[in-house]
């Protein structure tokens, strides 16, 4: 089932959580709502579920206006950040809850409920825990039970609020893969909220980047990573080195050093911000004229990658830069900590300043 939200506005007192936001979630996709905390992503999820009422705007489920439909009738499955399992019920009763609450005419027989609950518990591979209470489960198990409980009522949409937020790193990775597989099996339209860019890029079909109650960019993980639309998106998706300067013909000028860049933004001599990923920044010898002057402060060689931390010198004094390069490349060169070098970006993304001013 498709979901559309149109011109949703929601404020809590003076704080605007969602600012005239419109989005389309196509049927059958797994979409990630990604953004820093306080960007309005959870509020949007709750508005879609009906747990929160928008001040204005519409939510369309399958093309029908559902703004005035009660949560009960929206047929959404919601997985809460802290699972919200009923602590006084066994795992079985938790999963059966939605079926048992149905009006008498629609309620399946107890035998049918039993069959269905066990089927769901098998789906989440936790059938052997049916008699336990939530307090006796690990975080990852609780998460999967919460998902089974949400799926029991055969929702048309699955909404997950920070589904892996409260888990440790290893379980988190396992569950991510597992959720992706589950979605490929069930093909139910799903939206999940996360502040972890790695999680969003790895699991989702499509990523919606949000900031300050507005959508910054929508696209496949590859699109948003390779072609970030705004400086916020660039900065949020992975680490970045930041340069401030002025636009010149065919490049930018950073404190007297000219860096080449694609001239995709008009307006010469305007203030700009440029970003470079750590693996796209090259370290060169001081004698070469081009590049930003910097001094190597620290070298970290762990595994296949070497991370070099540098501090800007001259006009860029006090700036911090990160460079990543393969261990072999680093080893073949003769740089040492404390040495004066020049930094030359291979790919530079330039954003005009007013684009950043209101958002970053």
């Amino acid at each position, binding site marked *: 089932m498709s979901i559309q939200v149109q011109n949703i506005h929601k404020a809590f007192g003076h704080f605007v959580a969602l600012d005239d936001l419109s989005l389309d979630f196509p049927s059958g996709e797994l979409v990630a709502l990604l953004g820093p905390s306080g960007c309005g992503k959870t509020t949007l999820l709750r508005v879609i579920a009906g747990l929160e009422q928008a001040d204005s705007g519409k939510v369309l489920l399958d093309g029908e206006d559902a703004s005035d439909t009660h949560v009960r009738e929206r047929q959404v499955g919601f997985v809460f950040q802290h699972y919200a399992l009923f602590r006084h019920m066994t795992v079985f009763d938790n999963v059966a*809850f939605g079926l048992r609450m149905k009006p008498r005419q629609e309620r399946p027989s107890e035998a049918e409920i039993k069959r269905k609950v066990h089927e769901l518990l098998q789906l989440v591979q936790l059938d052997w825990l049916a008699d336990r209470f939530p307090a006796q489960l690990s975080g990852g198990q609780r998460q999967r039970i919460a998902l089974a409980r949400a799926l029991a009522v055969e929702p048309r949409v699955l909404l997950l609020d920070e589904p892996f937020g409260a888990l440790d790193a290893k379980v988190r990775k396992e569950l991510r893969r597992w959720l992706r597989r589950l979605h490929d099996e069930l093909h139910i339209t799903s939206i999940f909220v996360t502040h972890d860019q790695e999680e969003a890029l790895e699991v989702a079909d499509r990523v919606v980047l949000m900031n300050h109650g507005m959508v910054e960019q929508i696209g496949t993980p590859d699109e948003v990573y390779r072609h970030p639309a705004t400086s916020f998106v660039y900065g949020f998706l992975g680490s970045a080195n930041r340069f401030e300067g002025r636009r010149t013909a065919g490049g930018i000028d950073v404190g007297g050093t000219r860096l080449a860049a694609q001239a995709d933004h008009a307006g010469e001599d305007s203030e700009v911000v440029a970003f470079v990923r750590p693996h796209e920044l090259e370290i060169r010898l001081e004698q070469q004229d081009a590049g930003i002057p910097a001094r190597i402060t620290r070298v970290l060689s762990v595994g296949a990658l070497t991370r070099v931390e540098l501090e800007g010198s001259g006009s860029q004094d006090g700036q911090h830069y990160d460079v990543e390069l393969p261990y072999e490349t680093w080893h073949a060169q003769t740089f040492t900590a404390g040495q004066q070098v020049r930094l030359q970006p291979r790919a530079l993304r330039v954003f005009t300043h007013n684009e950043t001013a209101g958002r970053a």
Partner: protein
Amino acid sequence: MSATVSNLYAQHDRAALLESRQATRENPWVKAGILVAALGFFAVFLLLPLAVVFVEALAKGWGTYLEALTEPDARSAIWLTLSAAAISVPLNLVFGVAAAWAITRFEFRGKQLLITLIDLPFSVSPVVAGLVYVLVFSNHGWFGPWLSEHDIKIIFAIPGIVLATVFVTVPFIARELIPLMQAQGREEEEAAVVLGARGWQVFWHVTLPNIRWALLYGVILSNARAMGEFGAVSVVSGHIRGETNTLPLHVEILYNEYNFAAAFAVARCWPCWRS
């Protein structure tokens, strides 16, 4: 060694783990001192008075004891106390749950006022509370003329006693529930609604099971206070023997008449119902 340690942890027996090692064990003198202080305090201030009540009640033998309980004035007092509790505790139960629900689940104007109002009976002296009812409902009070015109008696009658009892017992259940419900949050209830549960289903299947122990404790406290209330009830009751005397008032009258055995006999029977 490490096997024993993990075993102890598995049994959630932190205390035993701490006791098992010299490094974490408390000085035996400190332990003994704390125990003696705690138990001694309870013995002197709680157990001793109770024991005295029992001994004094039976000082003149079982006959006097039973007589004190079965004479008409005592039976009337017992009956009145039970009725007042039977009315005020259910009222407080409904009101307390409703108030705690409203305060912890909704945002509304006047929320702080409601919280203050719930605490009011704790901060007002019971005698003053009784006097307020006298001022409002007695013959010379605000509604006095209207009430006597319609032949309704509140002060110096059972309705007044019930009103006073309700007033002093209002905070117990709500106060017990509010912190618990705040700590538990509303996520489980939201989960139930998303799964299709209706309002009363959410309350019955999710809210109530989560608050049942706090609720029970609130009911016990509220019942104990309802049966034991002296000040407020004393002001509104008028002390009419056999009619508006509750148990605490009856005990006081007997005591003032130097009828110690009967006073203690009645006093003895009443903590039994209180809990």
